[in-house]
């Protein structure tokens, strides 16, 4: 029970952070695109605004997807869930959580390969040596317009892998009754339904 509550608390803390990030990113997208459109009649083009808006959108997709996984509102085929009773449904939820945890861990492993922190240390934090050793150009790639190092934005991938692992683990511990499931764990109640959601 203790481990269940600990993971749940950690997941709740992540939810609080993710909610704030998500609201900020969406507000940012609207303001950036609008700033560009409204400044055009005055002969101004803010080239970096569109690029930053796109990156904000990409970040929002992964942050929001993580919250959805915790809330279990992401699109899934729930046909079998509806046919069977609550006991088997619980088994299906448990299996789903196990698969989700496994995916989170696999994605973390792939991000580890991609960011290759050990090789960075081995190369003495020298990008040229690192690239020569690994043919991995992640640390010198820059965004086309702003010219910022792209890896700052790529960091959303390991962050996403980490948060979905924690959220899926919290879901799993609730499925196996090691913790009680709160009514709205990601605090996103009231979201309008979209096409994405396949079943009830």
């Amino acid at each position, binding site marked *: 029970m203790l481990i269940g509550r600990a993971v749940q608390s950690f997941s709740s803390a992540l939810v609080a952070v993710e909610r704030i990030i998500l609201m900020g990113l969406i507000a940012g997208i609207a303001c950036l695109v609008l700033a560009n459109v409204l400044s055009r009649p005055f002969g101004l083009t803010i080239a970096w605004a569109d690029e930053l808006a796109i990156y904000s959108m990409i970040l929002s997709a992964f942050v929001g997807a993580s919250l*959805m996984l915790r809330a279990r509102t992401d699109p899934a085929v729930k046909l079998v869930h509806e046919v069977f009773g609550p006991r088997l449904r619980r088994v299906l939820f448990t299996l789903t959580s196990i698969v*989700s945890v496994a995916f989170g861990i696999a994605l973390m492993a792939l991000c580890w390969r991609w960011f290759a922190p050990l090789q960075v240390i081995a190369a003495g934090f020298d990008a040229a040596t690192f690239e020569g050793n690994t043919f*991995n150009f992640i640390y010198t790639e820059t965004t086309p317009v702003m010219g910022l190092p792209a890896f700052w934005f790529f960091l959303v991938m390991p962050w996403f892998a980490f948060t979905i692992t924690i959220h899926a683990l919290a879901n799993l511990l609730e499925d196996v009754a090691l913790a009680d499931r709160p009514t709205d764990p990601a605090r996103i109640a009231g979201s309008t339904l979209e096409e994405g959601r396949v079943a009830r």
Partner: protein
Amino acid sequence: MTAAIFIALLLIGVPVGLVLSIAAMAFIQASGNPLLFDSFALTMFSALDNFGLLAIPLFILIGELMNSAGITQRLVRLAAVFVGALRGGLAYINLLANMLVASILGSATAQIAMMSQVMVPEMERAGYRRDFATGVTAFGGLLGPIIPPSIVFVVYAVLAQIAVRDMLLAGILPGILLTGLFLGTIALLGLTHPYPVGERMPWRARLIALRDALPMLLIPVVIIGTILGGYGSPTEAAALGCLCAALIGFFVTRTLRLSDLPQVLLRTGINTALVLFLVAAAGVFSWALIFGEVPQSAAAFIQSVATSPITFMLLVLVVLLLVGTVIDGIPGLIMVVPILLPIATDIYGIHPVHFGVVVSVNLILGLLSPPVGIGLYVAASVAGVNALNLFRVALPFFGVACLALLILVLVPWLSLAFLK
């Protein structure tokens, strides 16, 4: 083996985005080229690096802002201005109001949820059966993702790598066709069903309704005008639409408050992620499919069955209606487009915009077909009726929508009329 994993994961209820990503991992493992794993996360990230996709959060934001701004009643009153004392008057008003709302919202389920709350009680008060009222509203809601703006069409345009503008404008005539067919269905049904006769609106009330609804119409005028007039991209049109929606909510209807904004932004973020995570997963999935040579195998099989573009399209309709019984809307689109689109364009010479309209409308129709049509369940739960009963009552509309689909297959011009 990969296909078996794919189906098993799907059936146990693993989120579709994760299923696609895991299937991609399995494909890479099976292809014997583990080096591809190094690009896995980057491919997912890059699948979203597209200016056209920016229209999606902005279109969703318009809907969320308008949801708080109470537009529906005003648009219903506007629709009533154009409908006189006809038999089934309120049913016509329902469809026309749905058409107007569709020019502001881009999603069927959001529209069905919003319209059911207003139209079903109103029609019931006027003497209509509740299940019929809900059926008309649900099918009217299908216009949401067909008449621009449309989130489904933006996703298709990005998957097919065609201009978002072309795809959005391609929805105008099919949307009008579908509205016309639905109106005709009510007229035909009215011959055998004694629907209540609508009330004639006094001229003064008509003028007030027009005055109240005019600011709302600014949103579709800005969105479609910006795109059609070439003043800006769909993304920019969507941003201007957001500005209009916010201004209307704050200063005209005065139903939007600053304190509502955090919730509006959060809901927009969640609904955006719902669509975009699927697009990211589709990016990595279709990338892996190419290495697994799946499109080639599917093409060889389909070529042996379908001999002409029309037979191919009809085959696609049947397959999608089957696919649509378990998976619909955007997830369905994301699964079938990477496989079917190259076959449609390269082998049968079908225009990608025409193909997109047919496939999207088909999958949108799946939103209202049992057993899993989410639109059906949303309407049923909002209105408090049985979902299967609702489908049975609305069956004539489903038949007419299938007819519209057939017309769209046979008359490509309906999808391509606004193409530059």
